[in-house]
């Protein structure tokens, strides 16, 4: 698996898009820090960008990589390799190179600004961690979609829909249901609703970490009340890990049965 990972990673590291993505974060990082002059504000703005953008890039890159490397995957399938090895190697290769663009792109401006000496360092690290989590989650979801759809256009369509649903529509539905059922106790409902959306979940992890109750919103408040800050962070991290593991598990199952 390491070999497949290595070569997928090298291939992507030389692709123009990895650099575009990297430079984009580099610019955002520098602009936010040096215009804002306040690391924790910059972290919040970055959070809003990261929770929407990393899933989008992860989904699109994941689907694109899968479809583009189809023939090459066929070549690998004819080698003495296990299917699990091939697909997990590619999955980790894509996720890792995207994560690297994110971590380096934001890391460089923050280190240059001297974040390592400030107290915001842990907030910043948790922000990057959440970004990495979201990348791994959405690349896995994208691979799932691509494995289940032979048709490229359909695959792309479903992937974009998935992102749109989790990033935008889900929150809307969530809000509507909160308003509609406001006479009922909604604590547990909102807890569960958050768990089923990795984007919401990551937002809450960061806000809990930053300890900005004004920005937590209803779900965040419920979360905090229910778990307390520390257990809240641990619980949501565990759920995020599950969000990575379950789709990855399905990649393995699906890949074993598929015809190429």
């Amino acid at each position, binding site marked *: 698996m390491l070999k497949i990972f290595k070569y997928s990673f090298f291939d992507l590291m030389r692709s123009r898009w990895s650099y575009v993505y990297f430079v984009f974060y580099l610019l955002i990082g520098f602009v936010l820090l040096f215009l804002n002059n306040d690391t924790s504000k910059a972290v919040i703005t970055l959070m809003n960008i990261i929770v929407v953008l990393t899933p989008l890039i992860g989904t699109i890159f994941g689907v694109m990589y899968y479809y583009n490397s189809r023939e*090459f995957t066929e070549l690998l399938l004819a080698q003495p390799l296990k299917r699990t090895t091939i697909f997990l190697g590619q999955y980790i290769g894509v996720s890792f190179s995207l994560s690297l663009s994110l971590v380096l792109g934001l890391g460089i401006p923050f280190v240059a600004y001297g974040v390592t000496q400030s107290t915001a360092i842990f907030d910043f690290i948790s922000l990057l961690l959440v970004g990495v989590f979201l990348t791994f989650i959405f690349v896995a979801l994208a691979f799932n979609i691509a494995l289940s759809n032979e048709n490229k256009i359909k695959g792309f369509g479903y992937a974009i829909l998935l992102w749109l649903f989790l990033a935008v529509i889900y929150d809307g539905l969530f809000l509507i249901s909160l308003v509609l059922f406001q006479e009922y106790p909604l604590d547990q409902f909102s807890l569960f609703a958050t768990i089923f959306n990795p984007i919401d979940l990551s937002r809450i992890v960061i806000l809990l970490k930053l300890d900005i109750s004004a920005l937590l919103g209803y779900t965040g408040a419920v979360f905090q009340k229910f778990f307390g800050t520390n257990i809240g962070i641990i619980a949501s991290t565990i759920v995020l890990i599950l969000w990575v593991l379950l789709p990855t598990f399905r990649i393995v199952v699906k890949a074993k049965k598929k015809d190429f």
Partner: protein
Amino acid sequence: MITIQNIYKKFGKVSVLKGLDLEINAGGIFAVLGPNGSGKTTLIKSILGMVIPDKGSITIQNKKILKTHLYRNNINYLPQIANFPANLTVTELLQMIKDIRIKEADEAALIEQFDLKPFLKQKLGNLSGGTRQKVNLVLTFMFDSELIILDEPTTGLDPISLIRLKEIIQQEKDNGKTILITSHIMSFVEEVADEVVFLLDGKIYFKGNITELKKQTNQSDLEHAIANILTTQHA
């Protein structure tokens, strides 16, 4: 060498292989022929484990191969469409496949034969279709394996490379290898193949040498013999 027993495969509602039996002995060149959609590629991919049959068994050198993967170390496969990671160079790709196979490779002579030296440092994404097919051929023939499977090997090749390819195939045959070829170019098949396996409707319709096939259909060349089978079958 290869024994295929009672293989069934359905894609959705379409049955492609319907109880196919085939025995291929070691040594020689076998051409797998058949009209479009007759299951040639499905058959080949089943042998390679890329398509998983619904029913039946495949053994290679007396070992059951379904759901295993190490047996592929002894197979060289040339896929129909050559498409590689765009950002790797030719040398890196060769290195990668050697890395995966853990087997002695001899690519220098092949690179010489196909005039690939000037392209070694170039990225695969920048190569023309024909050059990519040559890289594909080098990848296929650089290992010493007993079974060689070629899916439409002539696609995109210029006449010189085609001659080289025929020479290489002949060489491998003289070394006692078993070679499976699919092709729609009958003159190529007639020139290289010792035996023909004709697939029709998911089963083996004919297996034997080309002279027998011509005799059976009363035709003087292979192209017409095949056409004859198809028209009488579908009449």
